[in-house]
């Protein structure tokens, strides 16, 4: 396959070279070209080590990424980012009413978790749910229709931003912390039905101080529920910083008897590896639950675009927010042709 592509590629180079001379564009020559055969199918990246709580070891510190996966994660995160930026615009135009809790800047969490679990697993989150609504299978059209109160919305316009549902996705919950016992209940159902599925239950740093969380942790540990609790820490609960709200900001330890990990939430590979580790932990029935912490910073300014188009035309190293590649420019170029990332 590779050699065949190489032959075709070389042939094309020669052909274009010839026609450029005889055609209207005098002097233009293809200096170099890339073909699919030149790209690396897979690469391994170093990722940040996770702090552990009540665990012998954490997830691996190296992550493998194939072309397809990379493209998929990128596409997912880019789509969520653009959807959220658009929602922001619509909200400012008052076309979206009420609440609109945006997920831009945190996309790596949603993309990483979805990459680590199966579609048959379950997920429930709080009200900052647009990203997960998408990763769990609802179309952009249905999400934006729901946000704008249209009949074509996933909840026919009756739910709004905070109440969108899909198979194995339980919203979208407006009351801070209420989704955590619900998630443990979904995990109980998985255990009851013996289907080897797990439930990922997300909450924010603000909800981490809710009493019902600790009630839930107790029962989840007692009954060994297959539940991954995930705290998405974006350093603020509404306007209150974590230092002013929590006596302990080591949220990954707050589960006490529940093992925990502190994860870099800005790195999709770090999130994926940690979530995979946690999922295996749950499913293996060892302790049957884990607590995951994600560090995610909210995007400071709306104009902070995920990437400038120009950045990819050259061979400059690019740090894609939420999608961290190793700082090797040639690796980026080896990985993707620029045309694939511009769309």
């Amino acid at each position, binding site marked *: 396959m590779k050699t065949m592509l190489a032959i075709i590629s070389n042939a094309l180079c020669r052909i274009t070279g010839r026609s450029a001379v005889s055609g209207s564009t005098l002097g233009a020559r293809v200096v170099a070209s890339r073909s699919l055969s030149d790209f690396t199918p897979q690469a391994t990246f170093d990722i940040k080590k996770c702090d552990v709580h009540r665990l012998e070891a954490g997830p691996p510190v190296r992550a493998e990424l194939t072309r397809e996966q990379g493209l998929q994660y990128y596409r997912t995160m880019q789509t969520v980012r653009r959807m959220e930026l658009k929602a922001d615009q619509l909200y400012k135009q008052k076309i979206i009413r009420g609440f609109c809790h945006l997920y831009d800047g945190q996309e790596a969490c949603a993309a990483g978790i979805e990459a680590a679990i199966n579609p048959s697993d379950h997920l429930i989150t709080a009200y900052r749910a647009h990203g997960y609504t998408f990763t769990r299978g609802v179309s952009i059209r249905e999400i934006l229709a729901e946000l704008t109160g249209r009949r074509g919305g996933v909840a026919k316009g009756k739910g709004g931003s905070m109440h969108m549902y899909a198979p194995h996705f339980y919203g979208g919950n407006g*009351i801070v912390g209420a989704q955590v016992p*619900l998630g443990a*209940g979904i995990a109980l159902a998985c255990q009851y039905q013996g289907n080897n599925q797990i439930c990922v239950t997300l909450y924010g740093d603000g909800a981490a101080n809710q009493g019902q969380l600790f*009630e*839930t942790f*107790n*029962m989840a540990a007692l009954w060994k529920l297959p539940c991954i609790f995930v705290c998405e820490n974006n350093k603020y609960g509404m306007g209150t910083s974590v230092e002013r709200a929590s006596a302990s900001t080591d949220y990954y330890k707050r589960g006490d008897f529940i093992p925990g990990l502190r994860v870099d939430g800005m790195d999709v590979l770090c999130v994926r590896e940690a979530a995979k580790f946690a999922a295996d932990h749950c499913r293996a029935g060892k302790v049957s639950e884990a607590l995951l912490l994600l560090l995610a910073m909210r995007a400071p300014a709306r104009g902070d675009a995920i990437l400038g188009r120009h950045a990819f035309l050259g061979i400059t190293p690019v740090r894609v927010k939420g999608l961290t590649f190793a700082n090797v420019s040639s690796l980026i170029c080896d990985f993707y042709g620029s045309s694939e990332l511009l769309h």
Partner: protein
Amino acid sequence: MAASLRCFLRSGKVGTFLVILKLFPSDCRLVTVRDALNQAMDEELERDERVFLLGEEVAQYDGAYKVSRGLWKKYGDKRIIDTPISEMGFAGIAVGAAMAGLRPICEFMTFNFSMQAIDQVINSAAKTYYMSAGLQPVPIVFRGPNGASAGVAAQHSQCFAAWYAHCPGLKVVSPWNSEDARGLLKAAIRDDNPVVFLENELLYGVPFEMSDESQSKDFTIPIGKAKVERQGSHVTLVSHSRFVGHCLDAAAVLAKEGVDCEVINLRTIRPMDVECIEGSVMKTNHLVTVEGGWPQFGVGAEICARIMEGPAFNFLDAPVTRVTGVDIPMPYAKILEENSLPQVKDIIFSVKKTLNV
């Protein structure tokens, strides 16, 4: 004789039960409310694998009030789950399990403790089917004793019928006798909506006759339909739960004085069977509501409003009278407690006042 027997029975003494067994022929079944609830749960657990019970003391202790006696022995840890004292947590867990396809029965030791979990009942259970435009049903039953008990004072004696019946998305059911308890609990468990099932602790030990057809494993009473317990022509008495018995007692006393009372057992608070009440009022022209809860924004207040809004208003010869619990936190001393709840004499007094006799 029947009335005085019933009064005697209602004191709940076991000895009476055994005496009655000898007096009545064997094909007339006397079953306590507790046993009726127990049998209903047992049959539903057997019928549907997805049904399970969770709550404090429901398993190894056989139930705080022994309503779930024997179930843990029969079904084990998977189906009958003891929880820690974490109402908000375990109510939320029950709702989550319902969302994921199971059919939980969530027991609150009393409904006073449901206040700790009321966010899960209302915001997570009641509203979800609507908010999701039908995508996410929540087939759960919240059950437990409601209202006043005996000497348990203010924090353990509140009636939550009006609180829960206020909310769209919930069904609220309040059985009186054993047949109500059995049929309504089975119907509640089979219903795909969240149902709040308000029992009464003082009724658990009271035996009632049960018909033959009520022994069928598929016997259910439709939620949303009231029952006329006693036909009458002079005045309509509407009540729910324990006070239906008080109404029947009052009716017996009033019958001797020539006043013929029609007694309606609501059975379901939400959705309320207004047609039944209207039909009765259009016949008797007088209405008295009786409940254990407080008067403001209560069940009686709702009945008054609905009667006013419907065709029955024009048939009223006198304003509706509400007989309710006194508008105070429940006191402890026996004499104070007794006088804080509707008694038979209060119902008789209200009827006579309404009829102007």
